[in-house]
């Protein structure tokens, strides 16, 4: 089944928008239940689109982007599954299977973009130094457009190349799997730079113990199954207790006249 130019352009526009939507905008247009219907309507078979979208949606409900992890990309998955179901007359689950190589490429695109955007943060720093508010706005929009463009190209390639392209993509992704492994490992480590910058500004020498206490508590809670979602909330309770105790002790000392200036306090006699 061939698609005409208007259909290809429309698919590109839809993939462009929903690719951005998976992290921004309404953060709901990208769900397969929506993209299935839209792509189905564009390709002239709304019914199949609804069925594939609904089926794929049910499959992904147990597979949400929780805690920053990247699932095999559901955006491209939903779009390509609908395309294959309509073009090759497949049942929904077979179509979803054929969409997997494209979803994998989509995931690689996301990894690449998030890696490339890390050094771009030094450009943002420059904008901040110059109080250039437009620069910050521009970087945000350009990064969104880049994501849309990458996904739009993958989806159009899939639309034109069909499921034969999927085999080629699988071969390529197996060959270069180690590069993506390396980039994801590096990506996973880059957040430590972010932590280090925060510590550089916040950590006075007398607070090292507090840093390690937070680390220790989080590690202990991390080993308890079932506390994955609430871990940081529980940790915040303990942290607030420590901070509040310090605050109350110091303000009480100050109002009792034992604050700065009379450093001896109780230990004067020793």
């Amino acid at each position, binding site marked *: 089944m061939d698609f005409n130019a208007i259909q290809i352009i429309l698919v590109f526009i839809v993939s462009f928008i929903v690719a951005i939507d998976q992290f921004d905008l309404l953060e*709901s247009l990208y769900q397969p239940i929506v993209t299935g219907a839209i792509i189905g309507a564009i390709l002239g078979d709304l019914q199949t689109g609804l069925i594939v979208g609904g089926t794929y949606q049910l499959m992904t409900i147990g597979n949400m982007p929780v805690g920053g992890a990247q699932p095999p990309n559901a955006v491209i998955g939903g779009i390509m599954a609908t395309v294959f179901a309509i073009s090759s007359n497949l049942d929904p689950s077979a179509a979803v299977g054929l969409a997997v190589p494209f979803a994998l490429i989509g995931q690689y695109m996301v990894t690449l973009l998030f890696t490339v955007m890390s050094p771009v943060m030094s450009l943002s720093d420059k904008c901040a130094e110059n109080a250039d508010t437009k620069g910050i706005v521009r970087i945000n929009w350009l990064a969104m457009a880049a994501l849309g463009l990458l996904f739009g190209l993958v989806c159009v390639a899939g639309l034109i190349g069909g499921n034969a392209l999927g085999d080629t993509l699988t071969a390529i992704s197996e060959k270069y799997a*180690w590069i993506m492994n390396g980039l994801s490992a590096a990506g996973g*480590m880059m*957040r430590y730079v972010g932590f280090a910058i925060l510590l550089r500004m916040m950590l006075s020498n007398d607070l090292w113990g507090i840093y390690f206490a937070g680390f220790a508590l989080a590690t202990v809670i991390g080993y308890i199954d079932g506390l994955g979602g609430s871990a*940081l909330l529980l940790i915040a309770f303990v942290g607030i207790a420590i901070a509040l105790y310090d*605050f109350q002790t110091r303000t009480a000392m100050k109002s009792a006249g034992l604050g700065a200036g009379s450093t001896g306090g109780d230990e004067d006699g020793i």
Partner: protein
Amino acid sequence: MASNALQYKDLTPAQPLDKATLNKMVWRSCNLQGSFNYERMQANGWLYSILPGLEKIHTNKDDLSASMQHNLEFFNTHPFLVTFVMGIVLSLEQQKADINTIRAVRVAAMGPLGGIGDAIFWFTLVPITAGITSNMAIGGSIAGPILFLVIFNLVQFLVRFWLMNWSYQLGTKAIELLTKNAKEFTRAASMLGVFIVGALTSNYGGTTVKLEIANGDSPIVIQSILDGVLPKMIPLFFTLLLYFLLKKKGWTPVKCIILLIVIGLVGALPFIGLF
């Protein structure tokens, strides 16, 4: 690189932000993750979202720059609950609180929201609405996707607008109590912030090594030996190493990132197999 300023030059509290500016920032908060990256995650999007407020608060260019710089540090929270952090931070900015206080409150507020937001949106709202509407779609009804979008976005925007206004009021009220003991509050907030960054090091730190040493039927798994000494040792090691490089050696963040990419790629080489 982050500015080292500790206080704004103009310490006169700014006019309270009007409703229109607050609402404008709620709309902007939808693109919080527009420039998401592995180093500072949502930082640039966070700054983008609160800029309309910062521009109203800091009429002095130096202060606006100082505020933009510290708001570009690592930031990550739940995208649908971010307006809660925005309201509190903006109330502190408006009162010209110490920069370290603002930084610490921001860090302390962003962390716990992730779990709460996941529980509300990804574990409750989406499974229920998508579960029902998917079956409508499979039955061939176009009402399925439409209903899904309407319900989801209604809840999302109610939460976004309500949290922004509520937390801005909350922050404004709390500050009046805290200005009397500003120094003590800054110290307590920094303690909480450092505690949370310690927790994030472990909680967000997922780096592990795949290395195994052949030893007949029972290969020696390096990661389990490391875990036996101290779990999450690798995230802790890298955070401290990068802290040392940034603070003592004067490295730029970009240099740190290049180092990590090299480590990642070399470690992933098929004949090394570290990652």
